[in-house]
């Protein structure tokens, strides 16, 4: 299947790992991602004026019109902004996690399992709230980890805020909030958001921080140890 792809700014920069991971996972599953031509920034959370903020994503939808009906946006902020700007629900604005259904796993070639390893799927905020834009199955990563034999930790903190969007404003806020998540969870931290990745990575010490795409590709046999 062919999807429109909205990488957003961070996936073309500091979150290039997530961008490559998504592209690889989709390719391996037999799907094509085609970038929305000349897309612009979604505005993330930086604009106090709602009209200005949705204006950015409306421009992107305009550019997608006629080319795609389904748009995949991996960054939680981009995903939320695009979905909210699509007031008439003209497009299916989709987060990759919502594509993880039985057919997805049936098509997935498993080369490794996760037996004996502990993971904390850390969703953070925007994939879970507000309800209108939340992903459909808020246990999808726990189910995925368990499906491949891994152990799940951090249930109580999976929806806490890491303070990532304050990291370049009040770093102490991010440190305090990220540590609350880190202290109440175990094993490798699996994240979905570039800001969560940065917040966790900055304060995780020896703990590993990976994107969910890293984990999927690991199960599919890519690369060495996680």
């Amino acid at each position, binding site marked *: 299947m062919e999807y429109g792809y909205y990488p957003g*700014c*961070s996936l*073309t*920069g*500091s*979150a*290039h*790992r997530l961008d490559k991971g998504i592209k690889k996972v989709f390719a391996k599953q037999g799907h094509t991602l085609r970038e929305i031509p*000349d*897309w*612009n*920034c979604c*505005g*993330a*959370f*930086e*604009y*106090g*004026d*709602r*009209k200005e903020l949705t204006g*950015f994503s409306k*421009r992107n939808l305009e550019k997608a019109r006629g080319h795609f009906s389904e748009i995949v946006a991996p960054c939680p902020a981009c995903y939320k902004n695009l979905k909210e700007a699509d007031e008439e629900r003209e497009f299916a604005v989709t987060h990759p996690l919502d594509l993880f259904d039985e057919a997805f796993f049936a098509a997935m070639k498993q080369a490794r399992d996760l037996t004996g390893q502990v993971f904390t799927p850390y969703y*953070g*905020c*925007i994939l*879970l*709230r*507000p*309800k209108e834009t939340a992903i459909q199955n808020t246990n999808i990563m726990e189910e995925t980890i368990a499906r491949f034999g891994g152990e799940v930790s951090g249930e109580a903190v999976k*929806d*806490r*805020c890491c*303070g*990532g*969007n*304050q990291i*370049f*404003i*009040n*770093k102490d*806020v991010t440190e*305090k*909030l990220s540590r*609350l998540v880190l202290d109440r969870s175990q094993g490798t931290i699996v994240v979905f958001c570039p800001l969560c990745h*940065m917040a966790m*990575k*900055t304060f995780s010490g020896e703990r590993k921080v990976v994107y969910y795409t890293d984990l999927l590709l690991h199960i599919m046999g890519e690369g060495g140890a996680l």
Partner: protein
Amino acid sequence: MPKTEQALELTDYGRQDFAVCLGCKICASVCTVNDLSPGTNPQEMLQRLFLGQDVAADEPLVRFCTGCYRCTGACPWEIRIPEVIRALRHELGTESPFEKAFKGSVSLFGRVYEPYVLMKAVPFLLKGGYMKHVTRWMEYVGFHLPHKVKGM
């Protein structure tokens, strides 16, 4: 017009919309800012907005709200408190150097070009003690040229 009124004009809310607030303080019980500044209560801020009173730029809620939407998720009316706070920050002019650089990049290129943002924020990053984290951030480094979005 008071700043708080102007801020509300930027949101999907008007003052009267907060009349539905039940005062249940569920928002306060889940608000992330409580982990940083105990006793924070978004409902109290909404009440002041409803009454047309001021909200100050240095209040913990205005400074530290992370936009986590925990309040919205728990509120019976799903009031989007972080969007109100974001508008207040805008109106009160509390943007950090980083936020200014972000917006600067968007006006210049139509996208956030991280090297530009970092360059603009260097003095802040040096002063703020960010350099000690740089070794942990090496995996984020990569080179690409800026893209200029047409018509932005």
